[in-house]
């Protein structure tokens, strides 16, 4: 069992395994998203309060959830890379950042679109979730800016690991403090505390979308990590051999 993990941490083995696994994540993911989209748009009944506007949650909730998960992945992989000095872990963190930032942006856009019919405005600072999500976007930008500012790859990896770990603590603090702030100013929220009451016709497409998005995220992450690994290991023998091989490598 340990041997499996040990081999996984080795870049050439990971490169091969990731190529094999990725389609197994991507295809079911896309299928789930397809089901979720169709069911969410056409099968689920209207929300008694929000009408058809609520349907954006089928994109917003998965995006928001993944934006958080991506940051957790960055922090955990950074921690693993720092403590056990596994270079692949750093590659995972580097690969996850732009993906996470993209999902954060998506969550913000869909959140804004969702809020428009209800608030009458494109942005409501008083919504604690939206504001927290914006701060998360800033954390992502800081991480990516730090990475691009340091030339040496290993040094950049370690520095970004530190900022990701500090950031993860900050995410929690931001969540609670923004909630307190919002309660002071009685802003309007998208989701009431305790979550919206949903019947199963609404819920199943949502679960499908969440799972589907997660699988697709996983597949995209694997692809990005493969690219990272290829770039980082570009001078090693195994990469050279693979690229120069007759078939041109897969």
């Amino acid at each position, binding site marked *: 069992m340990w041997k499996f993990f040990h081999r996984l941490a080795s870049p050439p083995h990971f490169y091969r395994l990731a190529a094999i696994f990725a389609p197994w994540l991507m295809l079911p993911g896309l299928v789930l998203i397809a089901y979720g989209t169709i069911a969410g748009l056409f099968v689920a009944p209207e929300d008694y309060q929000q009408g058809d506007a609520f349907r954006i949650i089928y994109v917003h909730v998965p995006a928001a959830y993944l934006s958080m998960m991506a940051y957790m992945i960055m922090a955990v992989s950074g921690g693993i890379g720092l403590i056990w000095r596994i270079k692949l872990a750093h590659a995972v963190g580097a690969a996850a950042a732009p993906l996470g930032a993209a999902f954060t942006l998506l969550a913000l856009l869909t959140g804004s679109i969702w809020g428009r019919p209800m608030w009458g405005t494109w942005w409501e600072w008083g919504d604690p979730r939206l504001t927290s999500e914006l701060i998360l976007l800033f954390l992502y930008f800081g991480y990516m800016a730090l990475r691009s*500012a340091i030339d040496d790859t290993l040094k950049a990896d370690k520095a970004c690991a*530190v900022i990701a770990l*500090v*950031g993860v603590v900050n995410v929690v603090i931001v969540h609670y403090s923004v909630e*307190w*702030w919002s309660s002071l100013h009685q802003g309007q929220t998208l989701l009431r505390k305790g979550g919206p009451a949903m019947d199963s016709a609404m819920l199943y497409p949502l679960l499908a979308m969440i799972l589907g998005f997660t699988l697709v995220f996983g597949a995209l992450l694997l692809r990005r990590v493969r690219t990272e690994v290829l770039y980082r290991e570009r001078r090693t023998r195994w990469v050279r051999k693979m690229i120069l091989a007759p078939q041109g490598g897969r």
Partner: protein
Amino acid sequence: MMIDDVAEQPGIASGLVAMVRRDLLLVWKRPGDVLNPLFFFAMVCTLFPLAVGPSAEQLTFSGPGVLWVAALLATLLSLNSLFVADFEDGSLEQLLVSPQPLPALVLGKTIAHWLSSGVPLVLVSPLLAITYRMPTDVVGVMMLTLALGTVCLSLLGSIGAALTVGLSRGTALLSLLILPLAMPVLLLGANTVSLAAGDEMYSTGIWALAAYAVATLSLAPYAAAAALRISNE
């Protein structure tokens, strides 16, 4: 001289205290450096009435927020120089090869930084608060939040400063890294003062800031020390 004996190591507290003393001595030799963030603080406070108008109502209402944002920006400005000077003359890397625990030395530097930038800010703030028509009892609350808040900011800032020391565009990057970390501090500080201004219960905010200060005091030096080692590789 017995080379093989391990000479007695100086204690941790002495390292921290010596660091504080050295940095304060350096500030003493260049007292003008203390004034820069203070003037920046005052200037930012001037920007708002200029930009949005001097109506009394608006000033009283926005006072806590504006003062806090100005204090945050001024602290950010002063954080740039936390490690840069030591990095440039090579004294920083000497700290890294000292038997003294690095987090203690970093904490010493941060304390000296707070004493030379945060404390003056707190002391000057009443003058600016008066221009924002802040009642005296609220000014007291504001000074308390600023005192606690600047401690948090100096500590959080030391992490960002440690990560960006030696980088060519480090200044802008420092702000980008620290601001998201500083947002909860700003939030707690400014809103606590607003609550006090509105005659509402504000102790939650004070306790939260105090807790945050204690938490950052115990954790930030370790993160900053790790970041310094990484930056100096």
